[in-house]
């Protein structure tokens, strides 16, 4: 069965290839490749069938029992120390920043998908709203990053509620389709509202954030003090990279902190209850409308924060950055990490964003490896890498 599916997929995708020959472009055939692929899938599936399931890997099983408390602290400590490590160069910090953006997006989406159980395929829309709110606010009103950050969060939350209203009655697949459409609508608007958003050209030269009024630049503008002058050290372009890194780290940790707190509050518990059983929720006097809208709004707000950070880091935004594939990657991070697991998101983001970045040299094969990794994870850990869910309150805490 699996081999047939693979054949169907591989035949047009792998089997044909455009060849540049003397007569211009012509179609080439690579059926040997198709055969290899199909055979691999066939035997892979057969082995799994013969073994009566996937062999258990002890290391994966051990993940289950592990207390995750210390892992979180260790990861946080590594993240803080990273820029000061001897091998940390500009490249590494840049990549770590990128990973952190996705960690933050993953945590934001986790509120919607992992906690409230609302499948959102258009999460990138809020990322875009955040990025464009900052870009436009700084362009038209000359507002600084620190003013725009909360505004961008608010705008994104507003859009979250806007999306939330029409989809309140939908669940599962239907909800996914509508959110997918919403994500595309936002992108298409950004693309076509040329006079306001710059259309496909995007917005360039977005202001960089400052550190308590200190700018990161070799020769600061009149009346402003530069970071390196204030500290009395030599100018280095690395300062800005490190500053951006710490900024996103702080934002991400804030996201995590808020989410963890929310889970322990009645609203967080209501989200989880809504994911489990909507009818029971109504019967307990939980208002599903406001509960869902709040999940959308809070998730969107974090997306908006991440978006405005993205805009300020790049100094440039265009609709190109907010395609559906971004939503898909963020969703994959959440699902792979184990729905609702905060540390799972970090691990999955490292895997999905970090690995392809580090193996850029192997460009051609990285999507193949990516796909294989996904298949492997779904076979061994069908509920996500770290699917363990801690109760929000424990008996021991109640005894006091």
């Amino acid at each position, binding site marked *: 069965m699996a081999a047939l599916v693979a054949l169907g997929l591989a035949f047009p995708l792998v089997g044909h290839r455009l060849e540049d020959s003397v007569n211009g472009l012509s179609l080439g055939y690579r059926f040997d490749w198709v055969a290899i692929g199909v055979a691999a899938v066939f035997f892979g599936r057969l082995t799994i069938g013969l073994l009566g399931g996937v062999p258990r890997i002890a290391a994966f099983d051990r993940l289950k029992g592990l207390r995750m408390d210390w892992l979180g602290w260790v990861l946080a400590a590594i993240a803080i120390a990273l820029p000061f490590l001897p091998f940390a160069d500009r490249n590494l910090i840049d990549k770590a920043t990128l990973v952190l953006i996705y960690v933050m997006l993953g945590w934001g989406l986790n509120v919607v998908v992992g906690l409230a159980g609302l499948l959102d395929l258009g999460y990138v829309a809020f990322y875009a709203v955040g990025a464009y709110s900052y870009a436009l606010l700084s362009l038209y009103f000359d507002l600084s990053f620190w003013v725009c950050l909360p505004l961008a969060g608010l705008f994104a939350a507003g859009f979250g509620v806007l999306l939330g209203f029409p989809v309140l009655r939908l669940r599962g697949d239907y909800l996914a389709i509508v959110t997918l459409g919403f994500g595309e609508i936002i992108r298409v608007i950004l693309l076509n509202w040329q006079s306001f958003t710059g259309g496909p050209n995007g917005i360039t030269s977005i202001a960089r954030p400052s550190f308590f009024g200190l700018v990161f630049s070799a020769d600061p503008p009149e009346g402003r003090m530069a970071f390196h002058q204030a500290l009395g050290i030599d100018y280095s372009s690395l300062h800005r990279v490190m500053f951006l890194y710490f900024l996103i780290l702080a934002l991400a940790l804030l996201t995590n902190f808020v989410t963890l707190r929310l889970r322990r509050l009645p609203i967080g518990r209501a989200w*989880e209850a809504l994911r489990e059983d909507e009818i029971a929720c109504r019967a307990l006097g*939980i208002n599903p409308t406001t509960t869902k809208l709040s999940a959308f709004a809070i998730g969107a707000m974090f997306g908006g924060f991440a978006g405005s950070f993205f805009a300020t880091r790049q100094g440039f935004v265009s609709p190109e950055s907010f395609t559906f594939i971004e939503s898909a990657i963020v969703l994959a991070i959440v699902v792979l990490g184990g729905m609702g697991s905060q540390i799972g998101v970090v691990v999955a983001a490292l895997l999905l964003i970090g690995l392809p970045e580090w193996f850029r040299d192997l460009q051609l094969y990285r999507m193949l490896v990516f796909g294989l990794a996904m298949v492997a994870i779904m076979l061994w850990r069908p509920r996500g890498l770290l699917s363990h869910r801690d*109760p929000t309150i*424990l008996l021991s805490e109640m005894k006091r």
Partner: protein
Amino acid sequence: MMLTVEGLVAAYGRIEALKGVDLTVAEGEIVALIGANGAGKTTLLMSLCGRPRAKAGRIRLLDDDIAHLPTFAIVRKGVAIAPEGRRIFPRLSVLENLRLGAVTADPAYFDSDLKRVLGLFPRLKERLDQRGGTLSGGEQQMLAIGRALMARPRLLLLDEPSLGLAPLVVRQIFDIIAAIRAEQKVTVFLVEQNAHHALRLADRGYVMVNGRITLSGSGAELLANPEIRAAYLDGGHG
């Protein structure tokens, strides 16, 4: 009257499940509604909670008309339900389930309410950190009732509390319902197929057939009624 239902009509699409139901439940009473499969018992309980919504007729809780309120608002007026099939949250712990029951209650009462509910259901106390889904059927029913009690209801609605439980556990559950009324001064309206147990427990009972109330009387009267014995009791129910 705690609850007054007058001429209640409710429908699923074009199929009328309730064809004009009148009944009352006085404060502090236990009232049982019995009837065969598909008579409309569960529909009545559900439409007291606003879903399906009443097409005609009135539902009054004390002096408020609640027929047109959304479910969550009705619950906030002091109606709690342990729904059919229990509907506990399987992946949340027992304690979290109980906490969710208390979302509409004043948090100041939480600790004392929890103690009282766990006093009624000592089995739950042993399992507070366990996931709801890992409980046995009887324990899940206890959790559903306990969760409803955490809302500090004035009126407790129970939908088939004995469904799918062993006879011994059924007896336990009914003993606890009696204790709830005695200790907590909660009015109880329960729907049951297990007519024998329900009528023995209840002060009064109603019999429902095809979306209408056909008989009513005290629990003892109905138990002694030959028609009822033939229809609902001699069928082998313990």
